[in-house]
């Protein structure tokens, strides 16, 4: 008994120390900064509107985004749960892609679609002989909403279609036999049973929209500042750290409330029994109404998911040099120049961010994140798998970073670790540490179910057959966990590679990451800069897509991430 308790502490110690030092300490420093400012100046150092304006806008855009996402996501979930049609598998795989795409890639992809230099405007300019882009969708609320719908529809599809397929069909049939019309059966029986998953998905989408940063910064522009963007602006442009801290506290409070609500909803009252059927039969759309629904819905989803990506990739391979002075005339041609340009090491570059260095940095950070996040995640998952009072107390402490925003983390790091050894040297360990904190909950949620799924009798029968404790670990646990470990590594890698929020605070001139560099390039004028940003985004897209493909291939069915 005593030995096993000290073992649990030994498992807890490294992740706990890591979290306390690198997660809770920065948060505490933010709090301290805000409250010391209050003592120096009273509450006069800000005006209320500085908080309410971004807060209200954040809530408003999150609400609209969630509504739109549900509008597309719910029928789409129904489509995948009920119908069998050609291309179903491909479309489903496609619908999972956005979740893993870095925000920067999504933002640039929408830029190439609806931006001033994007396809939509180019086509309109060509056909109507215009000299200026007619549509100003960039820097608009519409652009933000569009990107959010693109991002989060996959969440609604995944969560709701999951419980829809698992809903025992006998409930509906029983209601029908008891004289309920199809609509009544749906409203009285199926809908209440599905409600927890719909609510859960909505809250999760709302949470993601609420904390969205990269997309809003790059597509919304300065007038559409959400809390996160405002934190970024206050901290990095105005150097008003107390204000940024105060906004962070507001943001954290709201995030916490939404997360708590989401956790409540996620424990359905009816238990797993109601949603445990493993129905494999899908309907073929035979009637006209169903055919129309399936076709319309699939076309809509293809447009939603494919067009930004195709647009990004194609735009990165096309040169469109509008001849100066001549209206609407431009020569279009295929080019790989944007890509080859990336690999030229230009020391005389006017930008501080060098693409080649950025790619190398990002790879190094990702590898480090893989190592840190997976090893800490493995320890944490083992600690969590041991039941007991200690686990119950420490679990929320470990899972909380899931709701914390990368921007706040970046801000906290910036304020806390602003002295040697953290600031000295050309190699900032802070970025991979921040990335590890962001990846850690995902890693834990991947490994923990795998550990819990190992029946203890496997370990026990190995022990009875003469396996020493380390042999049990090596012969039983490790081989069974291998898949989960590979998935975690891939998760950590892709998360780190695409991470933008924290990196935008921490990456300095010598150590840019790929997403930060893309952001810098796309904000600059000039076709070459634009093209290079697109080329980098495409490379990032390909890497992330292969990462997510690997995750989908290896992951065992039934493991949920949300």
């Amino acid at each position: 008994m005593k030995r096993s308790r000290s073992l649990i502490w030994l498992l807890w110690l490294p992740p706990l120390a890591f979290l306390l030092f690198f997660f809770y300490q920065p948060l505490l420093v933010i709090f301290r900064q805000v409250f010391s400012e209050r003592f120096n100046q009273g509450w006069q150092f800000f005006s209320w509107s500085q908080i309410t304006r971004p807060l209200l806008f954040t809530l408003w855009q999150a609400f609209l985004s969630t509504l739109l996402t549900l509008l597309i996501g719910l029928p789409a979930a129904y489509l995948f749960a009920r119908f069998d049609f050609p291309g179903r598998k491909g479309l489903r795989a496609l619908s999972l892609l956005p979740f893993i795409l870095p925000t920067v890639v999504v933002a640039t992809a929408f830029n190439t679609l609806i931006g001033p230099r994007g396809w939509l405007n180019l086509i309109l300019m060509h056909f109507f002989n215009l000299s200026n882009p007619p549509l100003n969708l960039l820097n608009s609320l519409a652009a933000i909403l569009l990107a959010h719908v693109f991002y989060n529809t996959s969440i609604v599809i995944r969560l709701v279609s999951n419980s829809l397929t698992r809903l025992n069909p006998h409930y509906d049939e029983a209601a029908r036999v008891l004289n309920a019309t199809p609509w009544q059966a749906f409203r009285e029986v199926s809908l209440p049973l599905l409600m927890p998953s719909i609510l859960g998905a909505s809250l999760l989408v709302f949470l993601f929209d609420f904390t969205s940063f990269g997309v809003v910064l790059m597509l919304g522009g300065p007038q559409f500042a959400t809390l996160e963007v405002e934190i970024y602006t206050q901290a990095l442009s105005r150097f008003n750290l107390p204000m940024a801290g105060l906004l962070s506290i507001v943001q954290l409070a709201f995030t916490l409330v939404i997360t708590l609500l989401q956790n409540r909803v996620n424990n359905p009252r009816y238990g797993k029994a109601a949603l445990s059927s493993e129905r494999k039969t899908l309907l073929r759309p035979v009637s006209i109404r169903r055919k129309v629904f399936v076709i319309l819905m699939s076309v809509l989803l293809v447009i939603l998911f494919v067009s930004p990506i195709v647009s990004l990739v194609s735009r990165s391979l096309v040169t469109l040099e509008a001849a100066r002075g001549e209206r609407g005339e431009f020569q279009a041609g295929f080019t790989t120049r944007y890509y080859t340009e990336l690999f030229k090491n230009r020391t005389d570059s006017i930008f501080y961010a060098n693409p080649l260095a950025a790619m190398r940095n990002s790879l190094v950070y990702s590898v480090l994140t893989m190592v840190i996040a997976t090893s800490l995640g493995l320890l944490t998952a083992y600690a969590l798998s041991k039941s007991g009072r200690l686990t119950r107390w420490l679990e929320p402490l470990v899972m909380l970073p899931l709701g914390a925003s990368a921007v706040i983390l970046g801000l906290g790091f910036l304020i806390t670790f602003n002295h040697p050894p953290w600031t000295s040297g050309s190699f900032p360990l802070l970025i991979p540490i921040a990335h590890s904190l962001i990846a850690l909950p995902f890693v834990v949620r991947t490994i923990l179910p795998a550990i819990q799924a190992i029946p203890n009798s496997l370990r026990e029968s190995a022990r009875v057959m003469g396996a020493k404790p380390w042999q049990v670990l090596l012969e039983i646990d490790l081989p069974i966990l291998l898949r989960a470990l590979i998935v975690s590594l891939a998760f950590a890698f892709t998360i780190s590679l695409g991470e933008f929020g924290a990196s935008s605070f921490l990456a300095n001139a010598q150590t840019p990451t790929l997403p930060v560099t893309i952001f810098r390039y796309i904000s600059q004028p000039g076709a070459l800069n634009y093209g290079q940003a697109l080329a980098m985004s495409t490379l990032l897209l390909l890497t992330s897509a292969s990462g997510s493909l690997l995750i989908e291939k290896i992951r065992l069915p039934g493991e949920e991430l949300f």
Partner: protein
Amino acid sequence: MLRVENIYKDYDGKPLLKGISFEVRQGELVCLLGSSGSGKSTMLRVIAGLEQPKSGQVFWNDENFTHQPAHERGFGLMFQDYALFPHRSVAENVAFGLRMAGRSKDEIEKLVRQALTSIRMQDFANRTVTELSGGEQQRVALARALAPEPRLLMLDEPLGALDHNLRTDLLTDLRRRLHASQKPVIYVTHDQEEAFALADRLLLLHDGHIVQQGPPEEVFRRPATAWVAAFLGLGNLIAGTITSPASAQTALGRFKLKSDPDRQVCSDCILLLRPEDGLMGEPAARQAQSLRGIVHDCVFQGKSFRVGVMLDQIHLQVQSPQAVAIGESITIAWPENTIQCLPASEIGLGHPGPR
């Protein structure tokens, strides 16, 4: 061989095993029989070293094994869910214990082949265990447990996960294999049919105590307590009070018993009336003590009928060679030398303690 002394063990803060003591001798197959939740599996886990008892000792050949780690005991344990390693092939599963024992590669290969041949699964060596049927998994699990030649083999409800038809088939097979291995075996089950078919000796576990132990035939003939009689379904149990060394008073009236001078007058007792000893109709009426009741149930049972008779809210079962019409009023009786008088209080009475 194995000796277990005075084992106490709590589960969830409640006492589960309250002083268990028994022995298992060389080549003996002992069945630990009890209802689910009685602590049978826990007893096995304590012997295997997977759990520590609150107090008490486990001895192997007079060597104290109580604090020996599980992997140093050299026992074998077959789990109810078999616990076959899903990431290993059939052959690798069987080889595991041999590998842990540090046997040479050639030796392991030879022994695994032998083991698989003996269960007629030599062609399955490279299959993954998840592809196997329940019966095949059971055979592989047994082969795996036996491969490293354990000093003692323990089986936790080895047929529990299988459906009824397969069980009867495998029971014969298992019986042959266990006897052939000549190892001391502890077999845990809640199924009395299995226990009676296999055991050299039965241990009946109830409420944390071993309430009776002995060869199956003896347990069947002379149940030590009313719980044993009820658990084994031996027959009608009627509560009463002893009025003399040769009689007891019950709700059905006075029963004459075979005289026993040790019987305590005025103490509570429970009478066991076995259906197969009961008489009906004319022969019953000739008995000195007979009962009248209404037939309310008659079930065909192959060789005979089981007749349910209702007397004053009390329901008795009696075996009959022919069918009886429901609703008919009949006379039934038990000869006095067939009636067994069991102690009413169950706990502690049938508990023999260490021998």
